[in-house]
């Protein structure tokens, strides 16, 4: 979810009370399953075109350097090289501006460096050649003269007075005077009076925490094929979470008319937020325009690590006061986040999510967005929220320990409920936090005995969820089957969920519905698949589009029977007269109507376009058991239970998969994943060997409990589920590890050397 798109949800009363579901809530096979297991599915790198060239990108070896000159003559002279591009081949109409107002310029600057290389891996120039190896060789022939500048990669160091300035004038008006120019945005929010609240507390704990940058770690590297002619008309195939956004950005960066660039989203091998922007797509198009040939660009894994967006790293100070009965009297947090050499670290989400699970009279949060010489951060699954939960829930855990209170009882006592004024401003509509805590308390995991050396941790977590611009069309075929065009790339099983919701409305089998992710020329605008919005927003639009088709089906039946339209209703795939007064007609099956639709008024379609704003916020409660080897500092997660409010689980298997996926990524983030920079500012671990995502054998079976507290903003009660699942894990695991090791862990990742060092420090060694 992009920073400028967040707005508090308005709620709404779409919910169809008392709906008896026939298809929704079942677990049919995924429609893309056969394609994926047989290799038929086409991912970004699988697209080819006649006469295609291969691209390669030259990247900066320096963390911060002025680009004095770029000489491409030798590369251009190499046999097989058809085009070389630099920043001069992109739009010069886009101007920098402070803060997020300059985001299009920021994206351009990130796609291809201008005056300066801003991080190790920053794109400097690119080549298209007749083979991938020739392109790789040609890149080495490009001669760049750099003037190396001092660099900074740590968030706290980047705020210090003596830190090198990355780009003066980037700070927007939110930033208070007196801060380093690397602090580019500032946020504060809250209510009440925290000083009074702390004075009332029986115990106040103040502590500081850090988290490292982690990468989304999608299995599919970025890949695209671009075709752009001198006439300004282009085609682009790429793996992305949102191809309308790709269309918009590429058109701007290359001075094209948006509608003249058709973008098709391939199957996607994971995104988790990291594919909500562009990196190589405009470069492929610029090379294609220059070479007048299709150009394919595929990133290596090292390029993915060095030059795409990991999440922010953070440094946080938390202060919470609690009474002996567990009531939180006041809470405040300071959240400093770096998101690379550009504005955009999601510090306001960190601040706003931090205390959202709790009903607080006095709460205050502050955020700083800080620039460093690192790659431009991209969204990662509930951007900003997991770090906040880690810091806040660690302090609550410590308060519970010192006051001898049950951690779930304390969460329940302070839990936000319907009508609670959220820590970030609005009043909560109907929410399901209490239900997740109660389900966690009742779960056998919570009362199961622990083995020696093990500890148990719990945490709550919160994410906003999002609606966003959405278009869906549905077309009925002559045989009564249906095809649905959605514009939200399927990153978590959404095609299946759309088919189930359409099946529910149309009353036809799931298997009779095919859902396609349409290209930008085949459907109206759709926002990116982000903010856990797809099953909510595209789902809502699918239901409404199907309802529009049903209304037309009823009209055709009414015309055939010669009765009023409102005397016909739709049930289970049939048009039926609404009662004895309407007349005695044999129910008319959908296929009987569609077979004659050409002669009875034309094709029957449905469509819906809107920006739904009733995405219900979502909460989760996680329980984790961890075991720490005190001799090696090694941690094993031995049991894990996710309890989360899904509103309504359309396809429960996919919902469980989202719950497990968030927990799995959280385990990696908590224990081993981190961007490691050397003193030279270069990334030390740009590969999966030393960037340690958990492997299957690192994980226990992750148990899931789906809580369903319907969202009033969706006809079937859906809440997004994809992101909330990664909010509690860092905290829950940290609490479990701290309990098992007997020492509070304040810095992620909790790698074995860190745990051993903490144990040694505690024992005074």
């Amino acid at each position: 979810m992009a920073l400028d798109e967040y707005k508090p949800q308005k709620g709404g009363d779409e919910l169809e009370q008392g709906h008896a579901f026939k298809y929704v809530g079942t677990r049919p096979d995924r429609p893309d399953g056969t394609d994926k297991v047989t290799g038929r599915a086409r991912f970004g790198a699988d697209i080819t075109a006649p006469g295609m060239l291969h691209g390669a990108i030259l990247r900066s070896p320096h963390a911060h350097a002025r680009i004095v000159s770029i000489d491409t003559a030798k590369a251009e002279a190499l046999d097989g090289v058809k085009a070389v591009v630099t920043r001069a081949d992109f739009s010069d109409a886009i101007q920098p501006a402070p803060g997020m107002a300059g985001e299009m310029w920021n994206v351009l600057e990130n796609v291809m460096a201008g005056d300066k290389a801003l991080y190790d891996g920053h794109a400097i120039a690119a080549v298209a050649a007749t083979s991938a190896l020739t392109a790789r060789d040609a890149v080495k022939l490009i001669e760049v003269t750099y003037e190396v500048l001092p660099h900074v990669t740590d968030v706290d160091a980047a705020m210090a007075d003596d830190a090198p300035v990355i780009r003066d004038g980037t700070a927007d008006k939110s930033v208070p005077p007196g801060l380093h120019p690397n602090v580019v945005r500032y946020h504060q929010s809250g209510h009440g009076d925290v000083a009074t609240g702390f004075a009332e507390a029986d115990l106040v704990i103040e502590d500081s925490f850090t988290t490292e940058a982690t990468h989304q770690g999608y299995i599919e590297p970025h890949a695209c094929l671009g075709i752009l002619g001198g006439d300004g008309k282009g085609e682009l195939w790429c793996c992305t979470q949102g191809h309308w956004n790709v269309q918009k950005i590429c058109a701007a960066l290359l001075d094209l008319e948006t509608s003249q660039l058709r973008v098709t989203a391939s199957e996607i091998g994971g995104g988790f937020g990291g594919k909500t922007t562009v990196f190589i797509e405009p470069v492929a198009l610029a090379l294609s325009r220059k070479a007048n040939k299709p150009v394919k660009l595929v990133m290596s894994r090292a390029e993915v690590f060095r030059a795409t967006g990991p999440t922010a790293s953070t440094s946080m100070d938390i202060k919470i006061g609690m009474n002996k009965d567990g009531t939180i009297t006041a809470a405040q947090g300071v959240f400093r986040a770096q998101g690379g050499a550009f504005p955009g670290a999601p510090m306001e989400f960190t601040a706003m999510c931090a205390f959202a699970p709790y009903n607080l009279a006095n709460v205050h949060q502050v955020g700083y967005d800080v620039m460093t010489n690192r790659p431009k951060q991209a969204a990662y699954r509930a951007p900003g929220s997991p770090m906040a939960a880690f810091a806040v829930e660690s302090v609550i855990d410590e308060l519970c320990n010192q006051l001898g209170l049950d951690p779930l009882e304390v969460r329940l006592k302070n839990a936000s409920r319907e009508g609670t004024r959220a820590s970030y401003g609005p009043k909560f509509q109907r929410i399901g936090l209490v239900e997740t805590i109660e389900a966690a308390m009742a779960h056998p995991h919570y009362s199961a005995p622990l083995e020696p050396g093990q500890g148990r941790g719990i945490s709550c977590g919160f994410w906003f969820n999002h609606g966003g611009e959405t278009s869906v069309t549905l077309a009925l075929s002559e045989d009564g089957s249906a095809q649905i065009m959605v514009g939200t790339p399927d990153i978590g099983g959404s095609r299946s969920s759309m088919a189930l919701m359409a099946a529910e409305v149309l009353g036809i089998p799931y298997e009779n519905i095919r859902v396609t992710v349409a290209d930008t020329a085949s459907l109206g605008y759709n926002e990116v698949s982000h903010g856990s919005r797809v099953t909510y927003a595209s789902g809502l639009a699918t239901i409404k589009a199907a309802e529009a088709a049903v209304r037309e089906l009823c009209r055709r039946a009414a015309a055939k029977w010669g009765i009023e339209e409102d005397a016909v209703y739709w049930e289970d795939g049939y048009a039926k007269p609404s009662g004895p007064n309407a007349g005695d007609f044999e129910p008319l099956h959908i296929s009987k109507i569609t077979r004659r639709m050409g002669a009875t008024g034309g094709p029957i379609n449905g469509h819906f376009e809107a920006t739904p704003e009733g995405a219900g916020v979502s909460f989760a409660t996680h329980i984790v058991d961890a075991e720490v080897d005190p001799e090696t500092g090694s941690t094993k997660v031995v049991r894990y239970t996710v309890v989360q409010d899904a509103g309504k689980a359309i396809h429960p298997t996919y919902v469980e998969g989202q719950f497990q996926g968030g927990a799995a990524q959280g385990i990696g983030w908590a224990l081993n994943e981190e961007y490691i920079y050397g003193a030279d500012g270069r990334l030390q671990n740009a590969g999966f060997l030393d960037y340690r995502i958990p492997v299957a054998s690192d994980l226990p079976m992750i148990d899931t409990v789906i809580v369903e507290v319907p969202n009033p903003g969706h006809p079937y009660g859906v809440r997004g589920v994809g992101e909330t699942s990664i909010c509690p894990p860092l905290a829950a695991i940290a609490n479990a590890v701290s309990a098992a090791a007997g020492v509070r862990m304040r810095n992620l990742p909790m790698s074995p050397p860190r745990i051993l060092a903490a144990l040694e420090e505690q024992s005074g060694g």
Partner: protein
Amino acid sequence: MRYLSPASFDDAIAQAAQAPGVTRFLAGGTDVLVQMRADIVTPDTLIDIKKIPGTHDIARAPDGGWTIGVAVTGAEMREHVDLGADWPGLVEAMDLIGSTQVQGRATLTGNLCNASPAADSVPAMIAAGVTLTVTGPEGSRTVAAEDIPTGPGQTSLARGELVTAVHIPPRGAGGGDAYLRFIPRTEMDIAVVGCGVNLTVEGDTITAARVALGAVAPTARLAPQAASAIIGTTLDDAALDALAAAASAACAPIDDKRGTVKFRTHIAGVLARRAAKIAYDRARKAQ
């Protein structure tokens, strides 16, 4: 780039002698191909030794030891029941490398000649007393495993020389070996520290031992003081403490992204202790 697949070691040596520029011998390719793909090395000549007869054989040697062909994969070693019964530690060390797919390609010889200080099979080979036949234009010589790597990515092999066979000594009665490594994950990782222990017992007393460490110095290395600490003992707590202290003392590691000097030095002692217990247990059962 030229790809050659000679039918004999003599041909391989002759081809290497004539090849200009950068030459790489290719066995399983789990290092060479990765380095080529990562643009670390682009050989002018690639000499594939897998098609040479005998390179896939695991054979009992006349002295009761084992001769392992240079293209024998980790998976083939693990499936060889008699080899595993004699040298479980060495087989387990090889089996720790990579994924199931990598196990279908990776070889002991490749792991040794890649000369990574963190190679898993190498401390186990050193502890076991493995020797290699090295053949080149000047003929053949026998080299101890610990004398092959000379530094990260560097070996004692002369230009045109290659390893043509791996020799594992006879196990004998009362012998047991073990290899343990520390990794932050449970698999698919690179050793932060590795430790191989090979020992022989008579009754409950250790009569001979070799201890080798990986990833704590520029090469995997033998730790004779660590072995001395347990020879003549029944691996009691005092012996284990002395072993751990000697293993830690034998470390000369670096601080890097995978671990600190302090952490590696400490873990070497922990692993030596744990590996020795396993080897001791195996040895007593093998009497």
